[in-house]
């Protein structure tokens, strides 16, 4: 199988695992922050619900459909933010998400990998615009 090693590296086991068994899958009732967005060109879709107490993300759930990259990336993201302060989450950048994924993403797939982060940031922006 070494002739498609590049693809093996991209779709490594833990990516497929997060794709097929997304962590924090589902929705929250009466979330404190919530947002849904889609990448209109490819149809990838992600919704994120957050429960926030005293500036800390107590719980997070996401629901989505799309490619392994977008779904695994969102799943990983939810894991990494639970229990974190909103200020810490604000500081998460594209590089952090890509580093977390641990794979190299081509320009065409970057939007997939970053959709979860975009939705998360929008959810928080909306909440703190409301306050």
């Amino acid at each position, binding site marked *: 199988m070494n002739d498609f090693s590049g693809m093996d590296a991209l779709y490594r086991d833990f990516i497929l695992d997060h794709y097929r068994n997304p962590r924090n899958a589902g929705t929250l009732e009466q979330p404190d922050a919530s947002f849904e967005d889609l990448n209109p060109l490819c149809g990838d879709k992600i919704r994120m619900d957050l429960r926030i107490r005293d500036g800390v993300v107590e719980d997070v759930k996401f629901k989505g459909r799309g*490619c392994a990259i977008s779904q695994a990336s969102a799943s990983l993201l939810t894991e990494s933010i639970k229990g974190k302060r909103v200020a810490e989450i604000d500081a998460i950048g594209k590089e952090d998400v890509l580093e977390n994924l641990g794979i190299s993403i081509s320009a065409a*797939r970057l939007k997939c990998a970053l959709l979860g982060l975009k939705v998360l940031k929008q959810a928080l922006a909306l909440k703190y615009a409301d306050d």
Partner: protein
Amino acid sequence: MALAPSSTPMLTQTDVARIRSEFPILKERPHGKPLVFLDSAASSQKPIQVIDAMDDYYRRYHANIHRGVYHISELATEAYEEARRKIARFIGAPEAEECIYVRNATEGINLVAYSWGRTNIRRGDAIVVTEMEHHSNLVPWQILAQQTGASLRFVRVTDDGMLDLHDLDRLLDGAKLFAFTAVSNTLGTVNDVAFLSARARAAGAVSVVDACQAVPRMPVDVAAWGSDFVAFSAHKMLGPTGVGIIWGRRELLEAMPPFMAGGGMIGVVRLESSTYAGIPARFEAGTPAIAEAVGFGVAVDYLTAIGMDRIHRYELELAAYALERLRKMKNVVVYGPGIEHRTGVISLTVGDIHAHDLATILDSEGICVRAGHHCNQPLMERLDVPATARASFYLYNTPAEVDALVAGIEKAKAIFKIA
């Protein structure tokens, strides 16, 4: 639609080898692999003849057209108009002047929606479209309906990806316009344009045919179709980007107000008001895509020299072979009707592999397929699939490339650990 009977010989391996040698891009090696281009339904590649014709235009006789009395401007004007005549002949248009140059099919359809639509559609009128339309032949009618107060009606799609025509006459009853595609860009379904145009006419509705996937891949005769407007793009039929055609019947076009206004489409201009030129100039405001028209004409020459019936049959052969191989694969779902109702556009899904991931893995093997909704969101809803991968074949593809596709899918399955 059955295969058009024809006495011309099939495209042979030798023919295809020669054709391939005329497409420079086929020598590219993305990711070190030979390019297997299976995305011609999105945009085809270009033969060297087309590329050279535009190169030659810019090197030898570029000038603005129509208003120049000097030599190179005469050459440019003549080449621009000669291309129009070639394209008109190619689609069986009774008159070249009925062929209006536009940027692409999308603009052609919008031209009809603005110019014919805003003049003829009123509150309470019905516009009929189908559930398999490309967004370019759906959203302009949605906006027209919203702005005029007209209603939209939909011809539904059957489970096997055909138009559900059982209530067509009821849908068309009292309708003013019927917009439909000649060939589905997602499923490859071939619709019976002559039949649909005749039903539209019988109901008193104008027919607008999206021929984007038909004109590149089968013989088309708009007069025999009996349609009112037909739109298509050069870039899907070996021609350049930036140019397409909306064909319309002279009586209709002549009664329509201008769409865009400006240089070249006028008669007498006074400060307060103006008169407009006849067709086609009335609809070609501003400096047109001259080099592109020239390239388009050469693309039509190229297709004509090979013969559209041969191209059509060759593509069907490839599609039949691909369907046969793909349908034998485990965990591969192929959408759309059987080969007797389709052309060389094949949508599929593989297990739980998302179409994007499949396309990325195929890309790593040099294989280009499209992944997503193919500008067919309502059809994807209807088929209840978020995205498909789509392979589309054209005259430069080979059975070996079908094999490469099959092998690529096997690799994707292996990576995703699917049986």
